[in-house]
């Protein structure tokens, strides 16, 4: 079954006529995703890689009934694009765009919540259900249908986990990049809940990093709710305080957001915490056997 998206998910791409948008929309389509339409204001009527383009999300949805959107709109307009999708009735938003102002995200988040929409990202690789539906920029061919659910704040670390679980024959149900921004959509707990209820998923890999306390809250949730084994990695144990480590959200502020607390909380909750990303697949496999 996997979570969030599958072979029947109908997807549109906002910002499809841009460089990244057109490239990745084509890649997703090639992967097998039902990429039914694209949206770029003022470019309605164009066609990108066989995908029809509309001026508004509403129009694209009216014609093609989209369930999900993948957003490549540049930072200055991305918050508005998210709100457009949410108010137009799209049920799942994956916002890939990096560099959206936090203020725009605070406002967009309220609209997304009001509409009861699920959002992944921004500043994330997207979501993929292996061999069914890819919405995002991850390399599709490293993914293999299987039993591991992956949820991560980091892009390439997710790929490491995907790669290893594929190499070890475990494969993945769904891999979700929740994004590296401090203000974002679905969090660890939202995704963990879904994996917990998903029959295809047998084990979960959680990849966190410094900044905020989502890992600590996830640990609390795992301690009281999770029955499936969880393997985790926390990146940034050696990061200095007060500096943004690439991701806008990866920053230790004062006494909060450090890696030690996260590692300790996860271990306390019975999670197998790896020292190196190299160990993720192997550790997960050991937990499952």
């Amino acid at each position, binding site marked *: 079954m996997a979570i969030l998206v599958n072979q029947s998910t109908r997807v549109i791409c906002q910002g499809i006529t841009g460089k990244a948008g057109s490239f990745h929309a084509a890649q997703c389509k090639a992967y097998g995703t039902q990429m039914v339409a694209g949206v770029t204001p003022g470019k309605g009527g164009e066609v990108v890689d066989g995908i029809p383009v509309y001026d508004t999300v509403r129009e694209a949805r009216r014609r093609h009934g989209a369930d999900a959107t993948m957003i490549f709109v540049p930072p200055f307009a991305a918050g508005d694009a998210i709100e457009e999708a949410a108010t137009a009735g799209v049920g799942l938003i994956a916002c890939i765009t990096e560099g959206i102002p936090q203020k725009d995200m605070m406002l967009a988040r309220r609209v997304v919540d009001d509409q009861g929409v699920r959002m992944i990202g921004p500043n994330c690789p997207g979501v993929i259900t292996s061999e069914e539906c890819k919405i995002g920029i991850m390399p599709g061919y490293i993914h293999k249908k299987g039993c591991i659910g992956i949820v991560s704040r980091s892009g390439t670390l997710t790929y*490491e986990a995907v790669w290893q679980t594929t190499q070890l024959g475990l494969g993945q149900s769904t891999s979700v990049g929740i994004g590296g921004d401090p203000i974002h959509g679905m969090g660890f707990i939202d995704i963990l809940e879904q994996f917990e209820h998903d029959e295809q998923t047998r084990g979960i890999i959680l990849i966190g990093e410094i900044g905020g306390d989502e890992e600590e809250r996830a640990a609390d949730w795992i301690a009281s709710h999770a029955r499936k084994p969880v393997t985790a990695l926390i990146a940034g*144990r050696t*990061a200095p305080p007060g500096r943004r480590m690439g*991701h*806008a959200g990866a920053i230790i502020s004062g*006494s909060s957001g450090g890696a030690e607390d996260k590692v300790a909380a996860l271990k306390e909750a019975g999670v197998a915490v790896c020292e190196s990303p190299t160990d993720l697949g192997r550790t997960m496999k050991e937990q499952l056997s």
Partner: protein
Amino acid sequence: MQLHEYQAKRLFDVAGIKVQTGLLARTAKEAARAIAKLTPPLVVKAQVHAGGRGKAGAIKFAQTAEEAQRAAEDILGMTLRTKQTGQAGLVVKSVLIVEASDIDSELYLSIVTDRASRGPMLIASRAGGVDIEETAERDPDAILKFEIDPVRGLTDHACRRVHFFWSNGTFGMKDTAALLKGVYDVYMRSDATMVEINPVVVTPEHELLALDAKVATDDNARFRHPEWEAWAKGHDRDAREVEAEQHGLNYIKLPDGTIGCMVNGAGLAMATMDVIKNHGAAPANFLDVGGGADVEAVTAAFRILAADSDVKAILVNIFGGIMKCDIIAEGILAALGSVKLTVPLVVRLEGTNVEQGRRIIAESGLDCETAVDLSDAAEKAVAAAGA
């Protein structure tokens, strides 16, 4: 970006928040001119990004103009070392000279972006002039914290809530509301992630005055704040970091490290640093060349690492995704055609077409070691650095 006190106070002034009359001075001469325009007693404050300025002697009270001039000359050019500046310290390049105020009592106020509630959080305390985290531990009842709905904005009843929490009956509800709305206005208009006034002082005339001003802004909003570029010029930044930014790289120089790192992806870059530490050495930097790791980015990255004399060995850790390993390997070779390395190089590739990638590097005759996984890479890099 963290603003200087004088920059933050300019924003305050525009938003109608009362601050002490004051002037900025970069030289002794400017200080003299400023002091001539102000009425003593004065306070001379170093404009550096560090807490604990007072304890470090970088804020001085002056009863007379002469004292103020001496203080300004003492502080200008001094090297400030506090917990936050590290061993190297920060050289004071400017001072803010303000007219001193009489103080009846001190309060604390900030609005910060709260990750958990994903919106602004207002924090007020009855104890001003002290660290808010200390207050939280010592006397949690002295702190009021609540979320602001960013869509609705700061409401009158929210202002009243703070007022009746703060008020000792001396200042009015309107004063509190004006201060709070000013701070919220600065927070929203300046795309701030934090606006902090510590302390807000209540004067004997029952005015509320922002004695200090801390504002941090969201770099992502740079495109709608052309004024920030000029502001950033007053800031001390590592020259390599500035260069990296110009090439679209995420680079952070780290003290006391010897292994230069080049990684694609912020998470993987952090994890790489962690693994180096596990092997007993320290990373010289954080460096994310971006998910694609294309030739230009890699070339610029090598140039920055090669120029860092702390670096005794370089570890390249790339996961080939959309950009496959063979292409990345060729990119590395191309980059090293134009950048001369004088330290050992260890390369770990993983992902799509990893075998071809490794072969390309092995067959190129490049003087480097390849590694099978990250632990192996770290071990080899640490050994190569002689750490």
